[in-house]
């Protein structure tokens, strides 16, 4: 069991999932993790790029059989 916050962006068109994730991450403390669900295929390229630029750690990113992506991101900074 992990303590990640969750963000369901299924049905939202790009770049809204990344905008929503950024808003959510701003509210979280350094080291916190957030899980994001998205059915926008662009998330597969945009999420790693967004994490790289911000210095966040992309812990996982997987696609299921229905084409839905689930990613987990740890916010940059000390995990406490």
């Amino acid at each position: 069991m992990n303590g990640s916050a969750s963000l369901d962006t299924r049905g939202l068109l790009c770049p809204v999932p990344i905008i929503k994730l950024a808003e959510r991450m701003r509210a979280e403390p350094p080291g916190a993790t957030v899980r994001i669900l998205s059915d926008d295929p662009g998330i597969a390229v945009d999420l790693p790029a967004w994490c790289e630029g911000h210095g966040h750690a992309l812990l996982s990113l997987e696609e299921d059989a229905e084409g839905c992506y689930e990613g987990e991101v740890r916010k940059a900074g000390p995990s406490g």
Partner: protein
Amino acid sequence: MRTVKAVGLLSGGLDSTLATALLLEQGVEIQGLNFSTGFCLTDHRRAMRRETDPRRIRNEALRCGADLRVPVDIVDICNSEYLGILTKPKYGYGSAANPCVDCRSFMFRRAREYMESEGGDFVYTGEVLGQRPMSQHMKQLRIIERESGLAGLLLRPLSARLLDPTIPEVEGWVDRTLLGRISGRSRKGQIELAERFGLGDFPQPAGGCCYLTDKSFAARFRDFLKFQPGEYVPRYDDFLLLKVGRHFRLPTGTKVIVGRDAAENRFLIRFYDGHWVFQVRGFEGPTVLSPEPLEEDDAGLVAGIAGRYSSGRAEALLEVAFGRAGHLDRLARVSPLAEAMVKTWQI
């Protein structure tokens, strides 16, 4: 000595990537800012879900941030104020539906507000003097600076040495002698800089990524506005629909939108509310929408257009189901319309 912080307007095109690299080289802290206008071709390609090549659907601003290790915030500006500027621009349109001077003034004003809230010292862009006909000549650059309230605080690193010194240069926050003197439409200067910085993954040329510069879109845009009442308040969905399908205007003024393939048909489903929907029975055919209200006499014509673009177009008579908001509770028996007639109505 404190670190200088700059807010960069990043499209992720080569020019804004190079402008960022030039400032990083001088030790400037960068915060990237990318505005989502709702008229980005890449975003639309993604929404259509036809593309499988990641390079065709990636967000170039985020790609730029990843390559240069700078954070990029995407800000959604597709609101009523922005749409109002698009429909009634103070400085007019370019060759299509592109009110570039007004659009950039709006963006730069938002960038100034963002800079102030983030504690930035100045704003920069990848603009190149004389590169684009409408927004990057000296006169327009000055109008945009004045309208945005960024006078003196807007640096164009690629052309800086051809422009008046800005506050960041005068104050020594950046070294003007290390900035560029690129102008015009040739990409030679940019290519040389890209080689120096080892940037090989060039994105599409900037300027080709906005629907508002597309001539076909512009024709639909102008037609749409012509048929709106004087008190019309722009809604983004109205303009989103202009990107999709074949568009027709019947002699009575009725508008018809015909999906061109499975991706567009699927996309049009989200617009069922507020529209009459037509679908040919017994044959493969497009999703056809016509905004409410629909004149009774026009229903047969719209059904005939639906027939023309179905696989039953050679039939003498077709059944076309139709109804409001996707409830196809009516039936029309029509002959598919001749292509020559349909084409005269196409926008």
